[in-house]
Each structure stands twice: as structure tokens, then as C-alpha cells.
């Protein structure tokens, strides 16, 4: 090894604390970038592969019942490549080992195995055999959550009749990568599953022979999805179609696409912050190294090293810790990426979720961090190169101090000398002080933004599970029920409160904007279900007109007072005008709420009910569950408590993981900035501080001067960091929000307290480390060394 390289390595070792801090920041940035990029790519690739391999359809339409020969008609639509018709139905299940009722979606499959759209991936067991109507294939998450396997039996109420089903296989489908019960947002693997059943047996069970109620198709290359959807809507209008839709409106696909988009947002925002801080750190650290090595630079030049040699030598101080950080960050990123993919595997049911760790991502991130390192080091390296050797032999000229604002005669007497030194140091280089404040505040901001998602989810749980919903059970009817259904429900022993709603699919239009949407007709907004917005405020239900989720109003371009055109998609398919009477800033989904009475009048029928909210007497709940399991006319049962539990288990846990990672990284960032700042101040002022010691100041007094400056910067950074953190969270909330959900912008006092405590602790630790060096300064040695 060359002597100059040895010099570099030894001096890096001497500055190992500072260099490790720089390397850690780079490692954090790279690991986020590498892990998130590989996760994004893996999700995208797995999705695409799954869709291609199992022929996920492009366009979907659900109807009430349409004759099978329409399949031919659809396949003749220009642009349609292939068509599959199916029969689907929602049913209730009695799962062995589960007291509460569960629900399933039955989907028909060909009696003989053949390639179809939205095909099955048979993970375990076998395909159904023709002529055995009780055989089904069940979805993997449901089976695994309930510890069931092929060979087990399960009973279901199909079309009012109890059927004993034999599970013969475990399957997955590209249609249910995100498997949730219709009407729900969060997966509840124990209480909802998808069952694939032979077409013939489902036809006979549902009296659907020669008919279908679900059609999906793939488009030919270059075909217009919009045109095909229009033709489908015309074709199936009289068969109770709720409107055809493309992949972008397919719930499962939308969740995955949103997820991929969110990962993409994190790729851009986090690494940028880390690299910016790395640039800053390298800049201040290198400037200091060059300043303290002026005489060495002169010697190197005097003995014949060229400017390039000297420049590269000092660039090495930036590149080596960066390279080290890059290696650690890549390894950490690979590991984190795999961990994240395991979390995704809990949510998303891919046939195979392949983790691609891509060289391109590593190369790009390493390239970016080296560019950042060079950018950060550039100023210092340039000054080393440009330093004329003869001038470098002379010590740096003393810095010019000027009287500052605290030097007015009246103030001077009141401020002790040590404080005056602190203030003058800050005043002398205001930009450096401002930049230090900004960097510390960035770590505060990341702490705030990291915990913000936590607060936001907390609010989501609070609003959705505590405020908005107070029922125990929701019964979803398989067909609209007449108002008299309430007498049947009321007669059940143990039902304490019951409330009903109507869900009416419509097409809403305003100007040229059109959306398929269902209107929910509520009996009241003060009973079991209430209307609560993001800020946890209760909103009252207007007696006339419709109340829209703000996002929906924005999508339609309407404001309160506007009149919507409404086309009912079922029943008498009336066309009506509807007044927008208000908007509500909701967290989940897109909704339109109306008073049940006015919805009934608008629909022009005698009134219909689609579901009931029930509050149960808990002592009689078990018996009621058994009743629900066998109840004809009920296609789905949702349990609020179970939903909350599954939310906590799945989403909150994964959110906690990412919050933990973010918090750790923010701590690393804070430590790197604060510690480096203190170390550089120490190096700049060791001589001066030791001189003060020689003049009789105590260790405590000189520590106060040095650490006081850092404390002042940190204290200034905390409120700035709070503000940046709030802005960053707002940005995140905006970027991460979709039609599916909006993250409410809420901050708990604990969030700020947590950030404050973390920063103070990090500062104390770095102060402790620096103070140890400060108190071990050799009084005689320091005075001997030339500055």
C-alpha cells in the first residue's frame, strides 16, 4: 500500500466516529432506496407475471342474470379477445372451530379443468371432479387462517339450503390478490374466503342453468377499453348490470397498484433526505480536515505530489466512508427488502411473490451516493487543490469577529463571557449555523413524519371502529328485503338494537363526469352507524339531498348546492335529479349518503333494505351466531370486533415495523448531525478552549461554551423540525391518499414529545462523547501544536 493511502486510512480511523456517522447516514439512504426499489420492482413483476400466467381479465361486469348465449354476443364486440362467463354468489359459512359465522364468495369454475380467464393456481390438493357437486377449492389464506386443509368439510348456506362442502384443493387467483369481503376494506382471513365450485353444481344450487351473472374478458392489443365498456353497458343494461369496469377499478388490483405507487413515493422522498444530509456532513467534515491539514498539504506539494494526487487523497476522505456506507446499506437493503416482501406476502396473495434484488438498483443508488459524496466534498477538495504551497505553510489567518447584537453596552454586562463566545461563534457564521439547524430539524421532521402514519392509523381505527360503527354484527341480505324484514329480525332473541340501510347502485353524472357509485340510504346517523369525518366530528344526515364524501365530490366536480343526474341501475332504472346537500371528509372509500325515506322516494318503489346493523346481548350472542349461520337470505355477515382485530393484527403490525425502521433511521440521522457538529466545533476550538483552561476556567465552563453552542442549535432545530415534520406529513398524506382511503392529518402530543425526547437523548449522548474528549485535552500539548 502506498504511504499516501496509509495516511488516508490511518486518519480515517482516527476520525472513525465522524466517518461512521457519515457512513451510517449513507447506509440508511441506500438501504431505503435499495429495499424499496427492489420491493417495488418485485411487486410489479410478481403482479405482471401472475396476471399473464393466469390470464387476469381486462374488463369485468356483474349482472343479475343473463342468458349464456350473450357470451357469443360479447365475443363478437370489436376489440374483445376472449370471454369467460361465471356464476358467483355470496354465502354464509359455518367454519369448524369458529363460533361466529363467516362468509364466502362462491365462484364457478369449469367442471373439467381447462384454461379460463382469472384462472386458478392450485397450490395444494386437486381440481374438482365432475359429477361431485359437493367438491370445492378454497382460497389459501382462508384455509391457512382456519387451519383447514384439503379433505376437510365445511357447511355453507347456498340459496337458503344448507350444503356440506368437501374441500379438495387449496387455490389462489389473480382476482383475489387482495382478498376482502365485498363491502369491507381490510382482509379478515378467518371469516372470509373465496370458494371455487363446479359450474354445473353452482348452476343447480342457484337455479342459474343456462345463465351467468359474472362476465370477464380480455382485450385485443390496441382495443379501446372505453368502447368495449360502453357496448357491454348497453348490452347488459336490462340484465341488472351495475356497469362494466376495467382493471383500474378492480378492487384487488387497485390495492396493489396503490401499494406500488406508495412504495414509489417512499423511494423518492426518504433517500433524498438522507443523501442531502450526507452531502452536508461530508462538506463540513472535509472542510475541517483540509483546514487542519494545511501544512500537510503544503508538504505534499513541496515534495512533489501533484494537485491531482492531493485532490484525490482528500476526495478519499469522502469516498471511503461513502463506499463503506454503500456496502452496509446494500446488505441492509437486501435484508430489509426481503423482510418487507414477507410482510407484503401477508397482505397480498400471489401465486408466487418473487423477490428480485436487482443489480441496477444497487448500481444506481451507489452511483447517486458517490455523486452526493463528491458534491459534498467538492468545495473542500477544491480548496486543498488550489492552496498555493507557500501560503499553506503559513497558519490560517485569525477569523475576523465583529461586535454583534449582544455587544451593546447595556446587554454586555448581563451576559456572561462564555455565553458571549457562543453567540459570537454563531453570529460569525450564520449560514453554517442555519444549515446545522436545518439538518438537525430534518431528523426531527423524519421522526414526526414516521410517527405521523401511526397517529393517522390510530385515528382511522378510532373513527372507523369506535365512532362510526357501534354495531356488533352486520347482516348483508342476498336480495333486497321488504321493510317487513325488521319484524323478523326484531323477533330474534338477543337483538338489542337493529337498524337498516339500503344500498342502491346508480350512475351519477355531473356535466361530462360520470361515476358508478352506490347510494347508501340510512335510517338515521345517530344510532348504530354515524357519520364521522377525518377530524372525528359527527356530521348529521341531511333529510333531503345527498351527502358526498369530499373526494367523490371533487371527482365529480360538484359542490353543495349542485344538482347531480342519477340513473338507477336496478329495478325500474329511473333517471332522477339529486341535490348535493353537503360533503363529508371521510377516511375510507367513496360514499354517498341519503336519508332512507328520501332514497326510497327517489327510487320510486316501496322501499327495500339490503343490510341490517345489529347490537347483540352478549350473553345470547353465541346462540344468535348459530342462527345467523343457517339463515337463508343472508349472504354475508361482518363482525365489527373481528374486523378491528384483524386490522390490528395485519395493518397495524406492518405499520409498526415501518415506523420502527423510520424512527431508527431518524435517530441515526440526528446522531450523525449533532455528533459531527460537536466534533467539528471541538476540533476548531480545542486550542482556544484549552487556552481558557490555562487561564483558569473549569472543565465545566469550557464544556458549557462548546456544548452550549450545540444545545442552542438543537433547541432552535426542534420547533423548525416540528414545522417541517408537519409539512412533510401533509405531503405524505396527500401523496399516499387514494380513492380507497385518505390518511387523516393528525398529530398526537406524544408524537412531538417523542421526537423531542429522542433528539434530546441523541444530543446528550453525543455531548457525553465529545465532553470525554474535551476533558482529556492535554493542556500543554494543545498549546504547542500549530493551528
Amino acid at each position, binding site marked *: 500500500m502506498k504511504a499516501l493511502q496509509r495516511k488516508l486510512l490511518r486518519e480515517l480511523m482516527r476520525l472513525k466516529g465522524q466517518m461512521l456517522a457519515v457512513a451510517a447516514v449513507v447506509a440508511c439512504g441506500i438501504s431505503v432506496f435499495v429495499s424499496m426499489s427492489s420491493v417495488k420492482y418485485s411487486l410489479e413483476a410478481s403482479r405482471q407475471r401472475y396476471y399473464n400466467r393466469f390470464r387476469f381479465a381486462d374488463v369485468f361486469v356483474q349482472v343479475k342474470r343473463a342468458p349464456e348465449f350473450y357470451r357469443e354476443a360479447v365475443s363478437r364486440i370489436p376489440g374483445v379477445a376472449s370471454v369467460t362467463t361465471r356464476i358467483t354468489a355470496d354465502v354464509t359459512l359455518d367454519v369448524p372451530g369458529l363460533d361466529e359465522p363467516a362468509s364466502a364468495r362462491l365462484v364457478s369454475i369449469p367442471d373439467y379443468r381447462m384454461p379460463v380467464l382469472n384462472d386458478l393456481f392450485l397450490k395444494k390438493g386437486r381440481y374438482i371432479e365432475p359429477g361431485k357437486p359437493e367438491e370445492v377449492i378454497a382460497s389459501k389464506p382462508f384455509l391457512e387462517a382456519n387451519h383447514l386443509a384439503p379433505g376437510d368439510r365445511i357447511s355453507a348456506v347456498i340459496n337458503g339450503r344448507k350444503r356440506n362442502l368437501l374441500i379438495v384443493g387449496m387455490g389462489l387467483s389473480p382476482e383475489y390478490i387482495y382478498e376482502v369481503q365485498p363491502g369491507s376494506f381490510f382482509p379478515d382471513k378467518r371469516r372470509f374466503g373465496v370458494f371455487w365450485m363446479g359450474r354445473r353444481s353452482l348452476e343447480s344450487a342457484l337455479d342459474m342453468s343456462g345463465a351467468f351473472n359474472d362476465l370477464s374478458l380480455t382485450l385485443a392489443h390496441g382495443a379501446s377499453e372505453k368502447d368495449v365498456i360502453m357496448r357491454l353497458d348497453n348490452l347488459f343494461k336490462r340484465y341488472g348490470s351495475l356497469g362494466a369496469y376495467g382493471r383500474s377499478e378492480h378492487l384487488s388490483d387497485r390495492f396493489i397498484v396503490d401499494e406500488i405507487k406508495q412504495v414509489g413515493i417512499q423511494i423518492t422522498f426518504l433517500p433524498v433526505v438522507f443523501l442531502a444530509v450526507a452531502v452536508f456532513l461530508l462538506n463540513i467534515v472535509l472542510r475541517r480536515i483540509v483546514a487542519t491539514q494545511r501544512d*500537510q498539504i*503544503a508538504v*505534499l506539494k513541496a515534495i512533489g505530489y*501533484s494537485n491531482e494526487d492531493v485532490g484525490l487523497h482528500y476526495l478519499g476522505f469522502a469516498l471511503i466512508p461513502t463506499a463503506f456506507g454503500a456496502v452496509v446499506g446494500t446488505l441492509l437493503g437486501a435484508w430489509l427488502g426481503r423482510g418487507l416482501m414477507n410482510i407484503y406476502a401477508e397482505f397480498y396473495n400471489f401465486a408466487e411473490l418473487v423477490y428480485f434484488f436487482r443489480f441496477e438498483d444497487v448500481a444506481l443508488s451507489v452511483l447517486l451516493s458517490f455523486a452526493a459524496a463528491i458534491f459534498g466534498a467538492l468545495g473542500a477538495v477544491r480548496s486543498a487543490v488550489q492552496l498555493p504551497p507557500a501560503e499553506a505553510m503559513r497558519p490560517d489567518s485569525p477569523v475576523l469577529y465583529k461586535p454583534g447584537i449582544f455587544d451593546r453596552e447595556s446587554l454586555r454586562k448581563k451576559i456572561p463571557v462564555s455565553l458571549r463566545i457562543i453567540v459570537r461563534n454563531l453570529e460569525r457564521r450564520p449560514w453554517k449555523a442555519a444549515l446545522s439547524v436545518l439538518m438537525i430539524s430534518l431528523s426531527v421532521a423524519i421522526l414526526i413524519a414516521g410517527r405521523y402514519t401511526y397517529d393517522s392509523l390510530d385515528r382511522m381505527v378510532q373513527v372507523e371502529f369506535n365512532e362510526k360503527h357501534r354495531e356488533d354484527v352486520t347482516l348483508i341480505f342476498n336480495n333486497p328485503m321488504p321493510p317487513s324484514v325488521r319484524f323478523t329480525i326484531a323477533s330474534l332473541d338477543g337483538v338489542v338494537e337493529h337498524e337498516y340501510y339500503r344500498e342502491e347502485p346508480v350512475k351519477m353524472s355531473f356535466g361530462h363526469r360520470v361515476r358508478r357509485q352506490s347510494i347508501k340510504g340510512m335510517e338515521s346517523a345517530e344510532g348504530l352507524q354515524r357519520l364521522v369525518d377525518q377530524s372525528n366530528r359527527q356530521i348529521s344526515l341531511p333529510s333531503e339531498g345527498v351527502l358526498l364524501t369530499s373526494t367523490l365530490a371533487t371527482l365529480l366536480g360538484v359542490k353543495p348546492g349542485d344538482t347531480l343526474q342519477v340513473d338507477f341501475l336496478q329495478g325500474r332504472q329511473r333517471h332522477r335529479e339529486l341535490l348535493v346537500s353537503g360533503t363529508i371528509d371521510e377516511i375510507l372509500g367513496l360514499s354517498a349518503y341519503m336519508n332512507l325515506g328520501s332514497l326510497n322516494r327517489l327510487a320510486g318503489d316501496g322501499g327495500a333494505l339490503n343490510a341490517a346493523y345489529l347490537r347483540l346481548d352478549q350473553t345470547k350472542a353465541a346462540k344468535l351466531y348459530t342462527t345467523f349461520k343457517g339463515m337463508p337470505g343472508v349472504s354475508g355477515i361482518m363482525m365489527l370486533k373481528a374486523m378491528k382485530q384483524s386490522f390490528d393484527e395485519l395493518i397495524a403490525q406492518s405499520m409498526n415495523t415501518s415506523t420502527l425502521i423510520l424512527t431508527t433511521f431518524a435517530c441515526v440521522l440526528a446522531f450523525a448531525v449533532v455528533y459531527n457538529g460537536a466534533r467539528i466545533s471541538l476540533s476548531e476550538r480545542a486550542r482556544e478552549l484549552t487556552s481558557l483552561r490555562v487561564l483558569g476556567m473549569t472543565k465545566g465552563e469550557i464544556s458549557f461554551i462548546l456544548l452550549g453552542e450545540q444545545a442552542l442549535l438543537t433547541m432552535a432545530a426542534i420547533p423548525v423540525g416540528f414545522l417541517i415534520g408537519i409539512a412533510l406529513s401533509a405531503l405524505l398524506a396527500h401523496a399516499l391518499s387514494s380513492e380507497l382511503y385518505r390518511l387523516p392529518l393528525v398529530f398526537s402530543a406524544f408524537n412531538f414529545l417523542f421526537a423531542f425526547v429522542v433528539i434530546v437523548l441523541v444530543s446528550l449522548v453525543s455531548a457525553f462523547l465529545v465532553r470525554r474528549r474535551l476533558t482529556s485535552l492535554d493542556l500543554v500539548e494543545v498549546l504547542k501544536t500549530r493551528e
Partner: protein
Amino acid sequence: MPHLLYFQIILHSLPDNPLDRGQHREVLRITDLSKVYMMGEVRVDALKHISLEFHAGELAVLLGASGSGKSTLLNIIGGLDLPSSGKLFFHGREITAATEAELTAYRRCSIGFVFQFYNLISSLSALENVQLVTEIADNPMNAEEALRLVGLGDRLNHFPAQLSGGEQQRVAIARAVAKRPELLLCDEPTGALDFQTGKLVLDVLEKVNRELGTTTLVITHNASIAGMADRVVRLRSGELSEDRRNLTRLSPSELVW
């Protein structure tokens, strides 16, 4: 780096062996050299119209009080600084007209520097400080050999902080001579040392000059050192005030101050 190559070819075409160089061959010629600094609004004439030449194998002492301009002259001779006017020739080649790369090559191949404060790299051992030079020079000595020459054969792996001032200065001399420079420039080499140690260092310089035939320029404010030189040049306020030859060179051990 074509400049560097070009310059090295010129240097190589010169006779290498000191014994081949005629005692009186001119190594360095300075003509009408001036240096002006601007310190704020004050004009400082550091050097005024200096003309001098040095010959191969000569040991010259440059005497002068602090501020007489002797360090400035040494820096210009060593290619660390540029004059305001006048010319400097090294073996007939004009150094004052050299490019940055040529200056680097000049320092790398022809000049050895010894500084008052040794200027060793504190993170490198004695041996490594010398290797810093032997790794980039063209026809260097073995680094250990250079250290043995200055009497530090047993201190190779000591770091500067583990060496006394005199030892550090001897490492610096070893570093300067290891490249076999044609010109050894020493700026107050004993300035930071006590009497005994200083004499030890001068001994080494004398030995290098005698054994290797290196043209040596020693700057000092200490007139007693002049006794060991072939030639004594005195500067006063940037002007040449004396240029004489000693009839006999004293050995450093005979010096008294």
C-alpha cells in the same frame, strides 16, 4: 501528463552521477528577482533585484534576520512560490516560466525540502514518511537506507509523536534526500532545536552534502552556522548584502553558538 514526461526527459539528459558534475557547473541561476506582497493596502518588498547563482555540490548558508526575505527566496527556488519579476533557471531551464505540471515534476525530481517545523505527516511512521517520497520519485534510495544515513536505522516504525525534535528533523532530512535531489533546501533546520540536537542535524546535512554531492542551501538567522558552508550569502531587507566564500569549511562539531 505530457508536461511531466517532457520535463523528466530534460532532467534525465543531465549527468546523474555527482562525481561527473564539474564542481563549478552552475545548477541554479537567479537574475534580477523581486517579490512584492500586498498586505492589505501596504506594499511589502520581500525581495529586491536579487541575482545569484549556485554551483553543483556547493553547501551555501543564507543568513538573514527574520523578515529579510530569505524564506521567500527559498520558496521561489523550490518552486513553491512565484516571483513578481525576474527569472530563475535550473540547469538553464527557466523555472519561472514552467507550467503547474512542470513545477510539480521539478519538485518531485530535483528538490528536497527540510522545514523548520519538520512537517512530518503525523499519521505516518518515520519509514512511511520517507516512502511518501520514494514512491513517487524516479531514482530514489531505499527508504530504510535514507533513514540509516541520518542515523535512524533503529527508529523506522516510530511515529512522529514518538520521536524527539532532532529525530523528527532527521526523518525530514531523510525524506528530503531519499529522492536523491540535486538541490536540498533547508529552511531554519535547527530553528526549533536545542544546541546539541541542532549540531547533530547539521552533521547529517554536511554528511549528505559530502557523500552525495547534493547542492545544499541552508537558511538560518544563526550566523554561527555559516562556518560550515562553502559559501555565505547574507540578505538584509530583501537585498543581497554579502556573498563570500569560506576558505575552509568547519565541521559542524566545531561550531559554537
